[in-house]
């Protein structure tokens, strides 16, 4: 009989404690992100599609169009073109196309780059209904970003 009352009292008490917790939460600020209206910055190690790293002084890509990334890409989704220009050491990058439809984000291109000119971007809102939207011109993208 004493167990009955003990259980009753402790049970009722625990119910009120539960109400207290949810009641407190009710007045606390919300913790969710309103996704389509708000975006979250991705963490630095997120592996999005690749992007060119700009030279800090000139803002031009650091890439010298050596083509190692193109060679190293197992899916063959990178195509790089460069040209010699007077007064400039090495080649100048003229075209850098990434076909993201076949890219598997393996990161071989970033690994093989000896000039520290490639990195993973933090973009993740890439949905589209057209295939052409995933053929990225990375030089154009770099200019748009800066």
């Amino acid at each position, binding site marked *: 009989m004493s167990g009955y009352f003990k259980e009753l009292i402790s049970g009722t008490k625990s119910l009120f404690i539960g109400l207290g917790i*949810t009641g407190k939460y009710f007045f606390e600020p*919300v913790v969710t992100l309103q996704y389509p209206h708000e975006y979250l910055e991705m963490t630095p190690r997120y592996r999005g599609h690749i992007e060119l790293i700009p030279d800090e002084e000139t803002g031009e890509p650091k890439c010298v169009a050596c083509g190692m990334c193109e060679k190293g890409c197992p899916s063959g989704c990178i195509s790089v073109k460069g040209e010699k220009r007077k007064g400039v050491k090495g080649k100048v990058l003229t075209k850098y196309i990434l076909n993201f439809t076949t890219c598997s984000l393996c990161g071989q291109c970033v690994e093989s780059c000896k000039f520290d000119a490639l990195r993973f971007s933090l973009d993740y809102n890439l949905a589209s209904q057209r295939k052409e939207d995933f053929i990225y011109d990375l030089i154009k993208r770099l200019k748009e970003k800066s």
Partner: protein
Amino acid sequence: MPEPFRVILFIIFVMAFAGLNAAYLVWCERKGAGHIQRRIGPKEVGPYGLLQPIADGIKLMTKQLFLPKGVDPILFMVAPLMVMVPAIMSFCVIPFSEIFVAREINIGLLMIFAFASVNVLGLLLGSWGSANKYAVIAGARCVSQNVAYEIPMLITTITMVMVTNTMNLNEIVRLQDGWFWHWYVFRLDISLLMPVAFLIFFVCSLAETNRAPFDMAEAESELIAGTYTEYPGMGFGVFFMGEYANIVIGCALTTILFLGGWQSPIPLDFSGFLGVIWGLFWFLLKLYALIFTVIWIRWTYPRTQFYELLNLSWKVLIPFSLFNLILTALQIKIFPWL
């Protein structure tokens, strides 16, 4: 104003009130659930998501009223109405304010309980008529739950009738005139267990309206949607409106019996139109505070197991309400001047 005209006007008001309440309590429920879980809840349709219930209503109304194969067409169509109509009928005797009541009848309390017992019949017929095994399980559970919880609820009500000596709801409210410690929930001089009686009544009204944590009729995790499994479109919508109207009735009854109905907590009375508004304000404030508690409880506790639910009624609520009945009778007998 001639009497029939007044009653018709009031019935129109009551139907609008019940419908709007059902729609906007869903909104409150979703907002409340959101904030308790630290989300925002509906916010896209209209400012603060206020048009969400209208969008939901339009969606439900445009759906086809499809009769699945094998259902009993009459029972299937009548069942939602049997949940909704008694709830609306009960509103006719609820005093929103001293004169703001459709019909002040002497057996208002009895009438509400008579209509409230039809609610479970509607659920049972709906689940039987839909020829679905999950619905039938839910219907069976629903009946045993309602039988179990109607007993402590009615015993507590008998106690209250013993105290007030009347079943006229307006009269019960008038007896709680004056300061807020004249409300029956604080009247320990009438019965030492009055707050417990209030709790018993409130818990029973939760169970009677099939609200979480006692929502055995729905139990979506095990019974899909229980009674509502086969219902399309507005059939489901009417069930839902009935459920929310029943919540309002339950909370209104708790307010009237224990929390002084339309009485203000301080003895401050106005006459004429201002008096009506003053009473209405206090009644609605108490009513919606209780409804908020109902929503709060729903999003705090998980659904109980079925046998625990019955244990709570038969092992705790019924003995306590019986003890309360005897104690109140003794106290009234020994101190008749109170």
